[in-house]
């Protein structure tokens, strides 16, 4: 069963296809990245840097988006391209902000990995598969070749000899597919380490603990070792010419080196707990060293000559030194503060945008609804006044119209008020208001609430609208039948969770949900949505209660 899954299953073939795609794609990514970076560095002091700097993040995101789609579809691993900022960024941030974005660098490492390792793997696998098929089919064509099939150590020129090749070819096929499974597993691991694990910009990356990281490091080192040995064997069987496995070896060493120095830095704070240093700077120095060593390896493997890696060495060295100097002169905690201020600035901008849009909507509703009705109402009453003497029946009709209009205006204003702040929320609090929502929903809704004291009004209101939006979506799009709502206050944190049994596929960037997200972020909270196709949809908001 297991063997069949490795040899003939759909999974086996999609994994194989994925590894093969590394060949052509690797070539493309490598040429694009090398060209882009040459332009970026080469034109750094000319005005041409502007369009290139602006285009770079799109380029990187575009390539990683192709890669992550392939990995999701063929390897079934949940990876996504670097996430974009939720709020609009200033011109300078857009131009150079990506240089400080770890996710962008990781994505580029992934692309390089695909170009170097992925290309080698694709070539290796194609060669192996070709040999295997050649072996299996040997009895059908050995006679057509002049002098039979020629291995350097063996001539296959008779049928018995050709028949011997059949099981050898079959064995080769098994080895190819086993290798494909092994390399796919390795690749899945690498993709997860280097690409984003969720398209949701708020979903924090679960931090693996140190033991887990050690285990992953050992696993990766072993897999790289096995992969390298296999490539050497392929090289030995196929041609034994130019020793090309040196290229994937360099890439393996680069990846292991960066991860190794990062682990080292985490475990040895004594090296960076000092003025002018920080954990991330130490990691940067480690990674830069590894990159320079890698480039030196590339330089050596390419036959030496002028030592060109001196240029990146200089650039990376200056970057590290500049950061160290900046750290030395900045007051302690400055970096955390700066990051906090950036978050606050962006969430506040989001909240202001959101409020602005909301006010515009209310103004429009008032203008087109109640105000227009009151104008019509006044006209009906004015005309009734005119007609009162000579046409009392006509006047009565007009007054009736006026009364109907007043009723409609009242109803519209009531709906509007409910959308701004539902009265029962102010009167009775979150649990009562959510229960009223549940009552009014056509779905079967259960409400569990464990809220000992009332949170601050803005928090209550945001929580209420999360439930309202989730219920509305569940009713409108998800074909859900049941909805469970859980609200708990644990210390200072209010958590609201809505789960439905619908078909999933809720759009986290859709109007309603992204508006709510901005509202909740402004309260220092988070809104997360998990809605895989096929369901279920889970929406969870967490907010500090603020009271």
């Amino acid at each position, binding site marked *: 069963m297991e063997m069949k899954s490795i040899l003939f299953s759909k999974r086996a073939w999609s994994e194989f296809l994925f590894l093969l795609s590394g060949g052509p794609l690797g070539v493309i990514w490598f040429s694009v990245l090398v060209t882009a970076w040459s332009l970026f560095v080469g034109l750094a002091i000319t005005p041409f840097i502007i369009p290139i700097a602006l285009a770079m993040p799109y380029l990187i995101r575009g390539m990683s988006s192709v890669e992550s789609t392939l990995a999701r579809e063929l390897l079934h691993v949940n990876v996504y391209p670097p996430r974009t900022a939720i709020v609009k960024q200033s011109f300078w941030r857009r131009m150079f902000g990506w240089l400080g974005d770890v996710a962008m660098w990781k994505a580029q490492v992934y692309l390089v990995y695909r170009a170097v390792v992925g290309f080698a793997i694709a070539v290796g696998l194609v060669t192996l598969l070709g040999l295997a098929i050649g072996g299996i089919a040997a009895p059908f064509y050995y006679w057509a070749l002049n002098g039979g099939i020629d291995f350097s150590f063996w001539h296959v020129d008779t049928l018995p000899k050709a028949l011997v090749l059949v099981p050898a070819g079959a064995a080769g096929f098994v080895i190819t597919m086993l290798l494909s499974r092994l390399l796919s597993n390795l690749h899945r691991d690498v993709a997860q380490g280097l690409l984003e694990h969720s398209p949701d910009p708020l979903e924090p990356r679960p931090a693996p603990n140190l033991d887990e990281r050690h285990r992953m490091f050992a696993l990766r080192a072993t897999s790289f070792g096995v992969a390298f040995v296999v490539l050497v064997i392929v090289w030995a069987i196929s041609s034994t010419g130019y020793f090309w496995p040196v290229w994937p070896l360099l890439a393996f060493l680069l990846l292991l080196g960066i991860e190794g120095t990062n682990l080292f830095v985490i475990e040895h704070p004594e090296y960076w707990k000092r003025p002018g240093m920080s954990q991330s700077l130490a990691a940067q120095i480690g990674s830069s060293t590894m990159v320079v060593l890698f480039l030196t390896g590339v330089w050596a493997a390419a036959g030496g000559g002028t030592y060109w890696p001196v240029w990146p060495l200089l650039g990376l060295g200056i970057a590290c030194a500049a950061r160290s100097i900046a750290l030395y002169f900045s007051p302690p905690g400055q970096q955390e503060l700066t990051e906090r201020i950036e978050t606050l600035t962006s969430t506040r901008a989001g909240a202001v945008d959101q409020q602005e849009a909301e006010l515009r909507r209310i103004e429009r509703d008032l203008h087109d609804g109640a105000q227009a009705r009151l104008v019509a109402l006044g006209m009906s009453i004015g005309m009734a006044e005119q007609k009162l003497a000579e046409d009392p029946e006509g006047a009565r009709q007009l007054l009736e119209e006026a009364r109907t209009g007043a*009723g409609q205006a*009242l109803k519209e204003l*009531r709906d509007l*008020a409910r959308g701004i702040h539902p*009265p029962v929320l102010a009167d009775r609090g979150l649990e009562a208001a959510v229960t*009223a929502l549940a*009552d*009014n929903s*056509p779905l079967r809704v259960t409400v569990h609430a464990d809220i000992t004291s009332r949170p601050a009004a803005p928090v209550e209101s945001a929580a209420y609208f999360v439930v309202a939006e989730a219920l509305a979506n569940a009713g409108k799009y998800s074909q859900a039948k049941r909805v469970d709502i859980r609200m708990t206050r644990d210390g200072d944190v209010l958590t609201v969770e809505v789960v439905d049994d619908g078909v999933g596929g809720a759009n986290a960037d859709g109007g309603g949900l992204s508006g709510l997200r901005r509202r909740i972020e402004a309260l220092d909270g988070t809104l997360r949505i998990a809605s895989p196709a096929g369901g279920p949809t889970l929406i969870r908001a967490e907010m500090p209660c603020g009271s």
Partner: protein
Amino acid sequence: MRVVIAEDLALLRDGLERLLRDNGFEVVASVRDGDSLLREIAAHKPDIAVVDIRLPPDFRDEGLRAALEARKQSPDTAILVVSQYVEQAYARELLADGRGGVGYLLKDRILHVVEFVEAVRRVAGGGTALDPEVVAHLFSSQTAGGPLERLTPREQEVLALMAEGRSNSGIAESLVLTVGAVEKHIASIFSKLDLPHSGVDHRRVLAVLAYLQGQTETG
């Protein structure tokens, strides 16, 4: 008939006062908040109090709380709660003690002066008046395939009007039927829903409402 009004907005208070006076009520007091309402009810023992839900000082549900308190302190005074919005929970609280002489209407209903005055009289006389929106909600939240689907559309209409608290003649008038026909429908509804038959109007309404609410909660 003697009335106390509790409404904080002068415009509405004066309008309500005039409307009720013009229709033959005696407005013995108009107050702005819940405490004064309880005081005036105790002092004047009016037939009915018309109370806005939202009153000072916090403009939440003070009116409702005062109304519930008044029903405990002065059981002989009927209470009609009016509001800009209706909440099922509030209707449930008002009806919870199982006595008549209680009403809960949207302020919109005041625009239909004749019907509104009729509702005030009915509540003052020990009947009930429940806003059509509350009733519609009770109907819409019934489980599909439940006993209500055994009723004919006409019987459902009659049931809805009955839940609003209308008398047989009121139902007959609004559906353009004879009183006899309405009585036949009602008998059929009660037997289809397995409800005990009761002659008195407001008992009958409370039985219907208890039935509908029970269905909602178990559904």
